[in-house]
């Protein structure tokens, strides 16, 4: 169970012979050996990475190994090509780890993915990936911090998410699926898509949403949450960030009056979503909620 990925996920790692691709492909395989089936590096077809077969094209990985999900580690200038190839070859979910992709490339690749058909999904880019705890890890998250449990976690950042997950695990609160949706201005999967899926997911009882300044994803999420049956706890980082400055993530920027932390905190407040002021408070709020809801695990 969990959302988007589970034990039936079959991952091809695009860029598997690169330093990062190789390292994380092996870590993903360590988490669940069934789930990592192939790698792709053009020109390296026929080789293998510690037993994982490498192909020249995604198409071969799909046909010969049954890959249905791609985890992308290629350099930023090759990312658009890799994503479009994945969907054109029959992949249904692309998890794009690569950071620094030009925004127009992201728009273009999402546009082409959309034209590829219904049910195709990109997570990221510039994201740490996704883990459905105990089933599959697709990305670069430190798997050892997770514990199985009823809390879904969605976040625009990486290490801040690990921080929150570590605190939850330390308090004995496990996670169902944790998704880093990415810190870029334009991303394939928004908070709302994740919330929709968590609302339908039997393994999830509550959700932690870790937002930040920039864009309107949090405001749209707030409006969606007001119609959800499951409780959500929110956190917004960048409250003290100056306008017009990019705070590390390309998407974390207040432009004019757009994308301020105040606007997001206000939207959550109006939707009745509790907003934590510190990371510790997130855990307190979740713990409080879980006493009220049924816990499936």
């Amino acid at each position, binding site marked *: 169970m969990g959302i988007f990925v589970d034990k039936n996920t079959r991952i091809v790692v695009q860029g598997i012979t690169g330093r990062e691709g190789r390292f994380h492909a092996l870590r993903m395989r360590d988490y669940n050996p069934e789930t990592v089936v192939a790698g792709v590096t053009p020109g390296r077809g026929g080789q293998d990475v510690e037993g994982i077969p490498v192909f020249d094209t995604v198409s071969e990985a799909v046909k010969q190994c049954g890959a249905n999900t791609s985890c992308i580690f290629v350099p930023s200038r090759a990312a658009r090509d890799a994503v479009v190839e994945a969907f054109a070859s029959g992949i249904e979910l692309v998890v794009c780890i690569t950071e620094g992709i030009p925004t127009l490339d992201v728009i273009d690749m999402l546009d082409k993915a959309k034209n590829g058909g219904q049910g195709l999904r990109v997570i990221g880019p510039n994201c740490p990936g996704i883990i459905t705890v105990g089933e599959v890890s697709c990305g670069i998250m430190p798997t050892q911090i997770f514990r199985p449990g009823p809390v879904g976690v969605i976040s625009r950042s990486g290490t801040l998410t690990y921080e929150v997950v570590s605190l939850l695990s330390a308090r004995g609160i496990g996670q169902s699926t944790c998704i880093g949706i990415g810190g870029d201005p334009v991303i394939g999967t928004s908070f709302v898509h994740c919330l929709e899926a968590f609302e339908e997911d039997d393994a999830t009882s509550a959700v932690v949403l870790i937002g930040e300044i920039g864009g309107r994803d949090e405001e749209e999420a707030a409006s969606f949450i007001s119609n959800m049956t499951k409780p959500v706890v929110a956190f917004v980082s960048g409250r003290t960030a100056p306008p017009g*400055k990019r705070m590390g993530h390309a998407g974390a920027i207040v432009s004019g009056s757009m994308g301020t932390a105040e606007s997001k905190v206000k939207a959550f407040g109006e939707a009745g979503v509790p907003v934590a002021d510190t990371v510790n408070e997130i855990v307190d709020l979740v713990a409080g909620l879980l006493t009220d809801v049924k816990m499936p695990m």
Partner: protein
Amino acid sequence: MKLHEYQAKEIMRRYGIPTPKGQVAQTPDEAYRIASELEGHVVVKAQVHVGGRGKAGGISVVKSPEEAKEAASRILGMNIKGLTVRKVLVEQAVEAEDEYYLGVTIDRSRKAIVIIASSEGGVDIEEVAAKTPEKISKVRSTPKEGFMPWQARALALSAGFDRRCIPQVGAYFSYLFRLFVENDAELAEINPLMLTEDGRVIAADAKITLDDNALFRHPEYAELWEAEGDDPLEQEARRRGLTYVKLNGDIGVIGNGAGLVMATIDAIKAEGGEAANFLDIGGGARAEVVQNALELILMDKDVKAILINVFGGITRCDEVAQGLIKAIESVDLDLPVVVRLVGTREKEGRALLSGTSVVAADTMVDAAKRIVAIARGGM
């Protein structure tokens, strides 16, 4: 990367969008020379990356080369919202019969390019959107779909542009879209687009912001990139390949991961302190990167204390700790430092730090509390 008005106008001219005749000047004499080649009224405009130049006195309309020189001497060197004016644009003043707005930018929610036209030009488009949304028309597109002149004409008509200028605006707007896509812009804006009495259409002010991630495709902008940012520390950071933003406080902050660093800065604020900067060293925490970051922080004379917040994640904390110690030693640090370290082999890491002058903290909140106390009261 924000371009100056004069740079944006150069690019627009290259794409066939008319702009007032003029040139950039760095001295009053240059301004005099440029103005003497222009007729009638001349505008002298400060070139700084900040809004509200006009209100701050950074724009002057003058009647002669002598006056242009005077205006330039007044404006050059002027401080506008903390930025020093180093260049002025000296150009032909345009008599407008009407003023419009044309803009192309990214629509994050719709994952598309949005093209915006308004018959209300020369004012802040956000204000127009708030007060008279009916005066704004928008369409969305993608790099693949493009934006053709007929779509531009339909947009301009629906925004209430004068019919006379529809053919020209149709062309210029599709040029602006092409400029946006071909240069990997985040924003390409003409505000105001002036309609003159004789029916010509001219970009009287221009803004272009480029996507930093796409600069590899545009080597022609590498030089601008070097010179960008008015803060010398931010320029230095760029040279060092660090993600750094100068802030107003006295507590230097280093962390790995943008969200974590933002949250750390928020936590400092919540404890009553003020961060001196945002500095993200990215995934992992190799010693040389930390060293590089520390060196940069130490160039900021406002910094009185330093907070290092690293979530080890995949990396082992003992290795991170060793790296940190090495880095701190190498820069010969004499400011107080609080380090907070989480991840695999956390205890071992903390143990290593206990043998140093570095203060180890358990949690982010704890670290924030300690550093604020140190910065406020001394050690």
